[in-house]
């Protein structure tokens, strides 16, 4: 279990966020759009550390393909205590967050590196 997961599960705030995340998933007002998410991912500067396709790098973790579940994703963004600063709803609205998650979920699987000649040598 990661440190963040422990923090989330132990805290009252975490419980609220889990509930909130579930609400986010179920609420039709927050229907997710991958296309809008791609635009929000750029507009909110997520790409600056995580890359345009969420691939990650020296400055930020890999987000895609296979992003963490939305509940975890939102909890992390709102409460990060690592190198990434926390993003409040004022800075990253719920709708943007949900769309970004949809965008990351839409990114195709990465091929096995063994199928890429430049990486298999």
């Amino acid at each position, binding site marked *: 279990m990661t440190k963040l997961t422990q923090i989330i599960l132990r805290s009252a705030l975490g419980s609220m966020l889990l509930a909130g995340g579930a609400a986010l998933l179920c609420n039709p007002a927050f229907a997710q759009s991958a296309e809008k998410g791609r635009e929000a991912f750029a507009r909110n*500067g997520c790409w*600056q550390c995580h890359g*345009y396709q969420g691939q990650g*790098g020296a400055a930020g973790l890999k987000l895609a393909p296979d992003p963490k579940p939305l509940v975890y994703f939102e909890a992390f963004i709102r409460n990060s205590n690592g190198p990434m600063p*926390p993003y409040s709803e004022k*800075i990253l609205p719920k709708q943007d967050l949900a769309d970004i998650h949809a965008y990351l979920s839409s990114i195709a699987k990465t091929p096995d590196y063994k199928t890429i000649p*430049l990486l298999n040598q």
Partner: protein
Amino acid sequence: MSPKDESPKANRRQFLGGVIAAGAATASAITPRISNAADAPAAGEHNHAEHERAPAALPPNGQTIAAETMAPPPLPRLGGRAGSDFMVDVIKTLGIKYLPANCASSFRAIHESLINYGGNTMPEYVSCMHEESAAGMAHGYFKATGKPLITLCHGTVGLMHATMGVYNAFCDHVPMIIMGGNDADAATRPPGVPTIHSAQDINAIVREFTKWDDTPTSLQHFAQSFVRGYKIAMTPPYGPVAISLDAGLQQEPIKPHHAGEALYIPKYVPTSPPQGDSGAVKEAARILVDANNPVIVADRAARTPAAIGLLVELAELLQARVVDLGNRMNFPNTHYLTSPPGVTNAADAILGLEMTDFWATINAYTDNGQHGIGENNRKARPDVRLISIGAATVPTRANYQQFQRFQYVDVDMAADAEATLPALIEAVKSALNSARKDAIVKRGEAARKAYAEYMARTRQEAALAWDASPISTARLCMETYAQIKHMDWSLVASEGNVSNWPQRLWAMEKHHHSLGRSGGYGVGYGAPASVGGALGNRDLGRFSVSIQSDGDLMFAPGVLWTAAKHKIPLLSVMHNNRAYHQEVMHVQRLANFRDRPSNNGGDSGPIGTSIMNPDIEYHELAKSMGWWAKGPIKDPAQLAPALKEAIEVVKSGHPALLNVWTQPR
């Protein structure tokens, strides 16, 4: 300051006075008006002539007629050999191959001697467009060749321009000799600009980040200072030195030294590097042999290529995993003991070699604490034993903070790591016993497995966003590597953050495979250091490649012209992410802490961090200065063909640049 000896027939001041007197005499022979005009009123008297209105079109005066119609009279010449010729003799004894500099009046005498008396060879003058570029070139050249260069700086302004390059060299332990022109005699130096460009203690500008400096007051003093400066710069830990060159001393003729003693040039004998105390070496060996999980962390350990073999021998003896921090190519990344930095967390003994920041090896700083103030957390085991071998503490200064946070260590040797490794290897061999040897063999088997997993994981990470546009940094680096790996290549600089893909996936086994970073982390090192490194590699038959970031290039792009002018072959592959990405998150972080959306001003990052709108056409910039260039390349499929074209240009002896639009990191 120049010596005020009575013996010479003419010195610089008298020479200038003679020119003025000769001109006045010539003019007076033609027209008395000049002579009258020369009868300046005494202080306090009013010169009524100043208030007489001149006619709209004046007839030519005597000076103009003389200049246009008569042969000039012979001017008095300096008697004997120029002092700056002797300075060139001194410089030539030390085998310094190049002198990158931006031309200037305060060193015009030695400039003239270098190219006319010295034949512009050993050293050869390399025309630079900024003193910081010249210092950066000397920096890169040394790391490619192991040989120091000289640079000349013009008075206050030139030395001020050079400071960032000098600071980088100081932090990166790179030797260079900075000679600054200066005119110290306030009574006789030309008024106006040359006086503004002079200082009474000009070396003070760089004193806090040089190992030593001097202001010679005679030619013999210069000879001693130059050889001494070279010796100090080249004694580990290496570093820059500064020597002020008085304008008068350069221009005046050679005079006998004390009581008729002829000038002489001192012989240079290299100084042995400091080696670790034998007792401390023995104690370090005991800790390493007794450890269950020793880790070696190498920062600037490989001062020369020989250190790589020594480090491999020590690591294999102990089967200790090695973290190469990348400021030098210390350890082959193809070796199974190569490890990512995280392995120090489980270590029970850490040997740090020429470390800049031992604190950060066992602790973590996270810039995400309450109220925006970072948090410190220990990441190493509480019982870890720490050993440090490094000469970097020797030239420490009080003002600049390159010494980092204080870290207690168990065994601390103020010694050159490379010079101490042979003794440490022997001490480890003596301390090993059969029981430890079995444990060490098992450790090696685990390291092989961990290395294989680490490399597979790294390759899979590189595959992420492989076909993305803008091009991923992994794709950028691996496409480049595929085109150069069959040559004797050298990564001369990799500024900007490309997630360390070259260090992770290029097969780095030779010292020149990676020349490391800047030292002082001032933006603007990459371009000049690349050109300097490529200059050194050109003479050694190596192929130079640079990963060139956009922000770095724009600090002093004139160095591109220098590369073209001097036919320095260099493949510059741009990591053009169109922003100062190191800074983007700093502003965003503070905005988040203060709970307000960041103002991007229509760009993709906070105002002040983007390099877009308009986008800079780096390929056109390079072309304008004589480079072959192509771009912007945004489609990864276009990268390999462009690289092939560029490499053919570089192989023909010229520089080539590819402007590639990339992912941020």
